[in-house]
């Protein structure tokens, strides 16, 4: 009996200690610090109650950042899941159809491997790479536009407030699509081929089969994809910080970057923690809304 208790204690204490110090205690302290006016310069601070949150409500920079995260939350999952489903179905049922059924395209494995490249590259590499891609004179994008004679379209992508946010969104889509092609592709393997064959014989177009057969049968996987992309959309910090640093004039700012700058550039730790708490409730709200919206009967096979 003692042997078992000792064993449990020895196995649980080190992980719990590590976890408690570096994860649980910061999360708990964040709520506490968000109620103070701590500036970090002095060890003293006062509790100011909800003042930080009141200030947040009137903070134009914060709302700009929230709006951008909101846009990401709408557009990133739609575009990424859409493209992911499109390419995955091209790969697994986009081949020829004959008596033996519907085939995948040739080289399916090749596409799956290549599309996954951005997933294994670190976000820092992707950020630096795309910052160079968008560079006005040395970048590949403007080089291409000039090469085909569209000099007028070769603009300073990241220096223009009209484009900076969309440039960031494009990179986020670029880096995420491949994973969902693989994920949806794996899920499609479990759909019986004769379903597609029957639909095609009945005269359904490929688009119809995608909307009427594939999407309903993959609904669970799509839901998971949505959750993960929502997490990416609420974050967005690394890509934005590296590519545009929120600029020009906060035209691509996001909440995570606001928090980081408020804390580590301005030294307003109390206020930054309040932004963190707001971010936490934003996450919870999105999760709750998501659970309401996607509740839908599963299609059983």
């Amino acid at each position, binding site marked *: 009996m003692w042997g078992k208790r000792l064993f449990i204690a020895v196995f649980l204490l080190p992980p719990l200690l590590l976890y408690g110090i570096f994860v649980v205690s910061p999360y708990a*302290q964040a709520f506490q610090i968000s109620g103070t006016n701590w500036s970090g310069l002095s060890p003293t601070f006062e509790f100011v109650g909800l003042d930080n949150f009141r200030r947040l409500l009137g903070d134009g920079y914060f709302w700009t950042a929230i709006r951008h995260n909101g846009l990401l939350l709408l557009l990133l999952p739609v575009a990424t899941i859409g493209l992911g489903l499109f390419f995955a179905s091209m790969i697994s049922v986009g*081949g*020829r159809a004959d008596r033996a059924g519907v085939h995948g395209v040739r080289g399916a494995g090749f596409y799956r491997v*290549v599309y996954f490249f951005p997933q294994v590259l*670190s976000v820092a590499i992707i950020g630096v790479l795309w910052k160079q891609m968008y560079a006005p004179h040395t970048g590949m994008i403007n080089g291409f536009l000039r090469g085909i004679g569209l000099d007028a379209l070769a603009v300073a992508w990241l220096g223009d407030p009209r484009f900076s946010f969309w440039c960031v969104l494009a990179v986020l889509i670029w880096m995420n699509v491949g994973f969902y092609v693989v994920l949806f592709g794996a899920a499609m393997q479990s759909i019986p081929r004769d379903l597609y064959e029957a639909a095609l014989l009945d005269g359904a177009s490929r688009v119809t089969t995608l909307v009427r057969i594939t999407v309903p049968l993959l609904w669970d996987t799509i839901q*998971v994809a949505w959750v993960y992309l929502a997490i990416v959309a609420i974050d967005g910090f690394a890509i934005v*910080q590296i590519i545009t640093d929120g600029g020009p004039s906060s035209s691509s700012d996001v909440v995570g970057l606001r928090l980081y700058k408020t804390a*580590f550039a301005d030294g307003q730790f109390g206020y930054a923690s309040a932004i963190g708490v707001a971010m936490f409730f934003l*996450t919870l709200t999105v999760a709750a809304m998501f659970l309401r919206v996607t509740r839908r009967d599963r299609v059983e096979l």
Partner: protein
Amino acid sequence: MALLTETRPESPPETFPQKAQRTVPVISHVFLVGWALLTTLPLVWAVLSSFKSDNEILTDPWSLPSRLRWENWARAWGQAHIGRYFLNSAIVVTGALAITMLFGAMAAYVLARYKFRGSRIIYFAFTGGMMFPVFLALVPLFFVVRNLGLLGTLPGLTLVYAAYSLPFTVFFLTAFFRTLPTSVAEAAMVDGCGHFRLFFRVMLPMARPGLVSVAIFNFLFQWNQYVLPIVLMQGEGAERRWVLAQGLTALAVNEGYRGDFSGLFAGMTIAMLPVLAAYLLFHRQFQSGLAAGQLR
């Protein structure tokens, strides 16, 4: 070159002589090759640019390098310290991965296999960490690490990486240990095997497939970490202990000022190629590891 062979149109089907069915694969390939180019061209461009001279980069972004300038790579590795950052990343991730896997497996095993008071609370405490955005913790974490005297040190970053990898690791491995058959454990106990021996000699080897997928997921999570090192590797002399992600972004800023574009591209290529090579070798494991990680 591989692209060209992949796009070869299919031979016509034996029966089913519908014209539309023959064009579908061609259309599919057009779209698929399009995205494949969109994925690979930026990477190829970075690698090619790493061999160019700055003048070649400035005059035409689409030109090919006139010769292979390995000196760009040497400059990035040495003068721009990419080599040192690489080593720092390797040290931190190796240590963090070892701690994560050992501690994660220990906690998950006890939580999955032993009944005791409070086990459910501990389980939810661990897995609850997956729900909180890491940004909420950033400010207090900075001070926790600083008060421990670990700010800007490799051991500090190692412990933090390991701690933030625990929620998913415990979650995944608890489920995995539950699926292992109890009969083997019982037989070992009857043979006089103690709890510790049972874990290290029987359960860990049996859990290998699960451990491998979690390890790959954790490796990518830790190797690709950005916000944690940015926040924690600050302070005096910390730039000697920067990790790759941080060093590369600093390089991007500095070389931009100095105009050493080829050095920047070389640094990027050095950071990019090893992981891409490892991925090409083990792409199946990578894909399943990541899928397991994101399907939590």
